Structure formats: C-alpha cells, structure tokens
C-alpha cells in the first residue's frame, strides 16, 4: 500500500462509513423479515447490490471528484436518455413504466437521474460567477437550473412516479436555496410552487395520484379503499409500541396486512417489529448521515464539492423524511423509497454512490 493510499485511508470519513454500514446491515436484516414468506430471498439480492455498490464506491474514491464536473453533461444526457427510454420502452409494472431492461438487469433510471442532476447543478453553481449577478441570484438568473430539473421531472411524472418527481424537484430546490438566492426570489419561488401545485392538480395529476392525496386528508373515510395502505401502515407502526413485536413477529407485516412491505412501507415493518426505540435509532442514523453530509459541504475544498455534498444531503433528507412521514400518516402516500432500507437495486446503488461522493469530497478536503 502506497503512502498516499495510507494517508487517504486516514482522511477517509470513518464515522460516515460506519454509519452507512450499520444502516445497510439493519436494512438487510429488516428486509429478511419483511420478505420471510416470499419465494425469493430478497435480502440476498439486496446484499449483492450493496456489495456491488461498495465496490463501485471503492473504485470511485481513487478518482478525484472534480472529474465529475467534467463528466456532468454526458452523465446528465445519458440519464435523460435512459429516462426517455423508460418512457417509450419501459417495463410496465402496476400501471407505471419505471423500469428499463438492460441485459439481465432491470434498472430504474429515475434513481440515477437524481445523482446526475445533483452533479450538474453543483457544476453550474460552482462555475457561475455570482459577483457578476450583483452578488445574489434573482429569479430570472435561475432559468438554467430550472430547465435542468424540469426536464427529468417532467419525464418522471410521465411514468408516472409522483414521489420520485417530488423528491427530485425538492433536491434541486434545496440546492438552489443554498446558492445565494435573494429572499424575495425565494418567496416568489414559494408562490410559484403553490401555483404549480394547483396547476398540476388541475391538469397533470392522474386520478390515482389525486386519490392518494385526497385519502391522505381523510384516510378513515377510505379504509380498505385507497386509504387502506395508509391506515394499515399506521396500525403497524402504532402497534409496535415501546420495543416492538420482535424480528419476524410483526403480524401486520407477516400476515400481509401491510402493502408493499418490502419497498415503500419498509419502515412500518421496522417500527412494528422494533418499536419506538428502534424507530428513534433509525431516525438518528439518518440524521447523522444528513448532518455529516452538511458538515462535508461546509468543509469542502471547493464550491463544486460543497454543492455536491449539499445535493447528497438533500437526497437522503428528502427520501427519509417523505418516506417516514408518509408511512406514519403525516404525508400522503406518494411512493418514495427509504434509502438503503427499501428493496431495490437502482435505489441502493444510487444511494451508495451518493455516500461515495460524500466520502470523495471529504477525502480531498485538504488537497489543492
């Protein structure tokens, strides 16, 4: 092992590595319970994806993250191309086209689009000379980042995948907020957001998406109908009480009262079987992950690295917050995976690459 590598190992953000490993391990363990009665052992497939992710991250650490700036546009267009491929040739599951068959694998390009978008936005904000714009961004100055985000969001909405579109948009907005934007512009953005929401409600949203939001507002009225998922999830979480029913003992999970318990509702499985204590533990782990990302951003070597870290922080934050909010009945059921917990190769790979970016940025914080 060369001296340089050894030094790099010293600089590696070990707490972040440890935190990721713990989340991944708990995730696989939990998945094994959630799919105890399933025919194929999903926890094994999930472990393989994680292993693949770890290898990819390991390889990625040898490359300076600034290379991403150079590759930003090709990556962005490649991701868009895959997304367009889904729109036209995608595999239809439960009424939505989200997957693309690539050789033996099924890929969900929308997961990678988030990463590509983060990289492109980071590149944009790091290269753009703010001082030329009187030191702060006005609304008009932001038209380019908006175009960056709206194209993939539109394609994702077309699948349709409201949750991913929402998360993608939220990540981009978070990065914009972190750039120097005038507060007036933020206010205008907020107003625009409301207008956009109204417009989407009237024109863009599919009936099933609307019904999800409506049932969120009054799930009891739709018990066993559209609100069934929400209610069963809340019952699962609530019945966990202090310490849960124990691994593999959750009746809501094991007896199939929880819908999609291995993907969107994986947190309910965790909360049912490990209770309030387990729930708080997991929340703390995600909190640590996001706060670490913000810390990496604050201490990055350059603006590009900083914005990358902010993007990744937003990625984990929004996924975790929307997912847990949704399964505990605080937010409508929109279908967002819980990072490193929900079953799904693309999602796991993208999340691990996100951690890889954080490690990379943090690793090179002292290098010029």
């Amino acid at each position: 092992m060369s001296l340089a590598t050894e030094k790099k190992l010293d600089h590696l953000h070990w707490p972040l590595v440890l935190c990721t490993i713990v989340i991944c391990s708990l995730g696989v363990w939990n998945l094994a319970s959630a799919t105890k009665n399933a025919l194929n052992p999903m926890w094994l497939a999930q472990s393989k994806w994680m292993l693949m992710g770890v290898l990819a991250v390991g390889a990625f650490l040898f490359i300076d993250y600034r290379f991403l700036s150079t590759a930003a546009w090709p990556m962005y267009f490649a991701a868009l191309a895959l997304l367009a491929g889904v729109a036209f040739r995608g595999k239809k599951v439960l009424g939505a086209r989200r997957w693309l068959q690539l050789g033996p694998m099924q890929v969900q390009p929308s997961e990678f689009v988030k990463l590509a978008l983060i990289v492109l936005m980071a590149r944009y904000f790091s290269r753009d000379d703010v001082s030329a714009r009187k030191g702060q961004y006005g609304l008009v100055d932001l038209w380019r980042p908006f175009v960056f985000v709206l194209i993939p969001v539109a394609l994702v909405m077309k699948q349709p995948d409201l949750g991913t579109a929402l998360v993608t948009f939220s990540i981009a907005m978070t990065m914009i907020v972190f750039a120097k934007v005038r507060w007036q512009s933020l206010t205008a953005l907020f107003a625009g957001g409301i207008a956009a929401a109204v417009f989407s409600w009237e024109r863009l949203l599919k009936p099933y998406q609307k019904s999800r939001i409506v049932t969120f507002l009054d799930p009891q009225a739709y018990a066993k109908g559209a609100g069934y998922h929400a209610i069963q999830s809340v019952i699962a979480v609530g019945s966990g009480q202090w310490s849960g029913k124990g691994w593999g003992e959750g009746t809501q999970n094991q007896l199939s009262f929880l819908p999609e318990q291995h993907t969107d509702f994986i947190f309910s499985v965790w909360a049912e079987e490990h209770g309030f204590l387990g729930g708080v533990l997991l929340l703390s782990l995600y909190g640590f992950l996001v706060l670490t990302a913000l810390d990496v951003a604050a201490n990055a070597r350059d603006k590009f690295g900083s914005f990358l870290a902010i993007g990744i922080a937003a990625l984990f934050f929004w996924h975790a917050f929307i997912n847990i909010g949704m399964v505990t009945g605080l937010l409508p059921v929109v279908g967002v995976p819980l990072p490193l917990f929900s079953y799904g190769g693309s999602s796991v790979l993208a999340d691990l690459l996100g951690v890889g970016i954080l490690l990379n940025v943090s690793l090179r914080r002292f290098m010029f």
Partner: protein
Amino acid sequence: MPSMLGIVRRDADEIRELRPRTALGALVVVCALLVLTVRLYQLQILRGDEYSAQSVSNFRKSLFVPADRGMIKDRQARILVDNRPSFDVFLTPAFCKGKERDEVMTKLATYLAMTPEDVERMKQDYQRSWTSKDKLDKFRPYLVELDIPRDHVDVLEAHRSELSCVDLIPTPHRNYRVGSSLGHVIGYMSEVTPEELDDKPDEFRRGQTIGRRGLERRWERELRGQDGRENIAVNARGQHLGREMDELLIPENERLIAAVPGNNLVLSLDERLQEAADAAFLGRAGAVVAMEAKTGFILAMVSRPSFDPNKMSGRITRAELQKLNEDTLKPMLNRVMNENYHPGSTFKVVTALAGLEEGEITATSTLFCNGGYTMGNHRWRCDKPSGHGSLNVRSALQVSCDAFNYALGDRVGLDAISGMAHRLGYGQPTGLDLGREIPGIIPDSKSIHPSTGSERSHAINAAIGQGEVNVTPLQQAVAYAAIANGGTVWTPQIVRRIETPEGKVVREFEPQLDVNNGRGGKLDVKPQNLATVREGLFAVVNEPGGTAYRSRLADVHFAGKTGTAQVMKLGQKQKLDPATQVYLSRDHAWFAAFAPAEDPEVVVVVLNEHGGWGADAAAPAASKVVRAYFELKKRDAVAMKAVQ
C-alpha cells in the same frame, strides 16, 4: 497559476459564506427529525394500545357457532319440530375485492347452481356491505345461500382453496316433521331483515334465521339459545392460517366459546288429534279448534288453507312467495285467532244466558214463533217461514229458532247481550300464548253509530250473532268451554312446559283464568241457567228435530250448536269470476261442541268459511273430531294398562 489560486480563494470565501446556510440546514434537519420522533411517540406510545388492538382485530376472524334451536314436542313428547344438520354459505366482502370478487361470485353461481335472481341478491348484499355506514360491515360474513344440498357442500369443499372469502357454516336447520296442518301453530323461520338488524344489532347477527309467526316467533327467546364463537387467525386475504397460528396468536379461552342450545317446548297439543281434525275438515277455508274444557289447554288447532313450514323456512322462490300472498284464500292468515266472523246461531247461547240471568225468561216460559219478528215497520224473518210455534229456551236452541231470539234480544237489550258476551270472553283477545290475536267485535249502546240503526235493531241482530257481532273460532272455544265446565273462563294455552335440552323442566304452565272477562275468569251465572242452556245444546245433537241430530254419535253424547252466519253482500266486483262470486256469497258454517255432554272434557269448534249450513258443513267435522278424541283416549288407556 495565479488565476487558479484566485478561483480557489474565491471558492473558499464562498464556502465560508455557505456556512450559515448549512447551519440553518442542519437546524431544519434536526427539527424535521424531531417532528418524526414526536409522531412516532404519538403513534407508538400514546396510542400504542389502540393500534395494538387494531392490529389484533385485523388478523382475528370471528366465526359464529350456531346454537341448536330447541325442539317442539306434542303432549306425548312426540317430536313435531327438531333440527337437522345442514350448511349455509357465507361470504365476507372485505376479503374478496376487485377481480377476485368477480371470480368468486362466478364460481359460487356455478357451484351452487344459483338462479339469476339469487346471484343478483348476492351482488346487492355485497354492495350494501361496502356502502354501509358501519365500517365493520364488510368484515361481517353475509348469507349467500341457505341450507345447500349435500352435493353442493361436496363441490364447495373440493374448491375451498379458490374461495378463501367464502365460509361454509354448519348450521342446524329446522326440520318440521308435521306438514302444513300445523303451519299456523308452529310458524316458520326466515333470515333477519336489514331493518331488524339495524333495530337490534346486539340481538341478531347477519344471516341468522329467526322465528316468524306461531310458536317459533312467540317463543323465540326460549327456543333460540345462544350462539357460540370461534376465533381464528387469518391473513389479509382472509385465509385461515391453521391451528398452529391460532394457538400462537389467539388466547386459548377466546378460541372457542361454546354455543348454548335453546330450550324445548312441550305442547298441550296432541299430534294425532291434530291430524284427525285436519282430516275431518272438508272445506276450502276455515278453522278447527279442540280444547280441554276444564283447563283451556289446546289439543288441536287447524287453520286452512295453510303453508308448509319447511318450504317457508327453506329456499322459497319469490314467485312462490308472491303466489302465497296473492292467493284470495289467504293461506298466511291464521283463521283461528286473526279473522272476524259473524257467529250466527252459535251466539244464541249468549242471548239465552242473558235472558235467563236478566229474568226476562225462565227455563219453562215460552215465546211464540210465527215465522218472524216485527219491530216498528221492519220484520226480521225466521229460518222457518211457517213458524216454529210455541218454544221455550231449550227447544229454541234445539231447532235454532231465530224469531224466539229476536224477541228475546229485543226484551233484554243490547247491553245485556254484550255484557254476557264479554263475560264469556268475546270482544277481547283470549290471551293464547301464540302471538298476535284480534279482539273481535261486540257492539253495545256506546259503540253503535245511530246511522246504523236503533239500539233495539242492533239488539235484535246481535241476538242471532249477526249485525256487528264478530268473533274468532278461538273465542268460541273459550265461551263454549265456560258453558260446558260450569262457568270457568280459561285463557287458552298451547305450551304445557319448557324444558332444557336435557329434559329438566324450566317452567310448567298451569291453567290460567281469563281475568279480562270482567269477573275474574268466572262466568258468574246461576248454575240452573247454565244447566238449561246445556240441556238445549244436548237436544241439538241428541234429540230428533235438533239441528245436528244427524251428526250424533252412538257411544258418546256430545252437545253443541250449529251456526249459519250470513255474509255481508258483496258489491258486484267485475274482477271475480262467477264461481268465486258464488263461493264468496255463501254463508259461513259453524259448529261448537263439547263432550261428553254429561261431564265435558273437550270443546270442539269448527268454522267452515262459505261452507253453507252449519248442520251440513260443520257439524259432521266436529262430530268426527269428538269421536277421534275418545278413540285416542281409549287407545291410550289400553296402552297404559299394557305398560302396567
């Protein structure tokens, strides 16, 4: 590389400027996580018990275990009604949604060979469960088909795995061993209606059958028993998870709560006499009642036409039901106690008793019949236009002279007649323990309307059981029993005792005085007056010239009175065919009898609706029932001796 360094320095500055925002971001993140933590605390700690209970009720499916309904037996413990094992098909809507629903319903329709009508009903009930205000309704199994044949049971069992939302519940069903002759007495069973369920949700469950009419309804609470419950563990699709999971998830004392069977009814009715009475009655419509004269216990009770309780309790089609309801002879009407009839000449005992008690006549005083009676400018004609000549009260009953009674009625007045009628139990429900009963009508000076004629003319009509006087066959039995037994007015009863399934007596019924007659169940007339009337009734049957002389029996003396009640003239209804028209305008034939005349044990009342002459169309039937009573008595005595 000064420019490069410049960029880096500028970057460093700007990153430093970013720090307040990342700090703010960190604050937002912490707050958001706190919100989620509070939410978890709220759900898991504050409301944890509630959600725990809900998660339990999710996988817990409660199946009812139907209780055995009590049996109904006759006075000699012959089983009239018991239960036979059978299966009902139930469906739980919550476990059967969308495509699965259509598949299951198609399969059920095929496997059970359901009629399109039944399929439609199944679908409607399914829909109703989802739209019900009660959210739990869709978790409650509803009845798809009652009492399915054995081969259908086999088919369903074979396809059980495809029909996870369908339950085959072993339910004992009613087995009516006697045919339609006891239909009105016993009643039948049918499913509770949605309205009844709404009314008493605690008392009934969906798909439960309850007693309708007759004893089944009147003694529902005694007969029903208490359903048990079996709790099993199911998954989200309602599939049973097996015994092992039951033991794991459901506490032992809640797994099976045994059913408590209902009590048995032992009747005073004699099945053999019932059959005899049914066979003796030859008319199209009418009633026969046989009652113990000294206790008021019912021995036989026929109302014709009747219905088959097995058919009514089973899968009767809508068309058959409609036919029953539209039948002009009204098979669902219990004529023994729920229809008004003019008593005709059978009511003359009331006039005679009133006259004797009021002192208007004596046992020997006579009145002259010249073929009618005139009051004012109206003349009431006697049956015999040439006149009966001079008659006393005894011979007036024997030949059933109308003119004698017109004159007597005019003398004693309406209120004396109605007073005596009430003492005999007319004009009020008798109180038979069989359910709803009409009171009949006994006019008095207060109840009559001036436009319907003077009080005197009412009295004259009432004297021969016409005008506004209306009675039921059951009231006739009570009244004639009182005359026969020396003046005790009994409340008729049909249940002798209630027993547990093991045969332990829960309740024994003693003869009960009809305290509603105004005299505490006593007739309160002079014994010699009662004897005079009984002599008249004896002459009716046993002396030449008596109206029922042809129906007398050789080995037993019975007494009685014929009645031929005029029917109100029908308006010319165009819809009725001539044959029906003729039938409906014929008189009702009555005969009220008691035997043996010397020491009466049994009262028999026969009403033959539109049968014509009482002497021809009712007396022979009554005679046959009386004979059957004594034959059975003799046979039982022989059997008893053989046992000893």
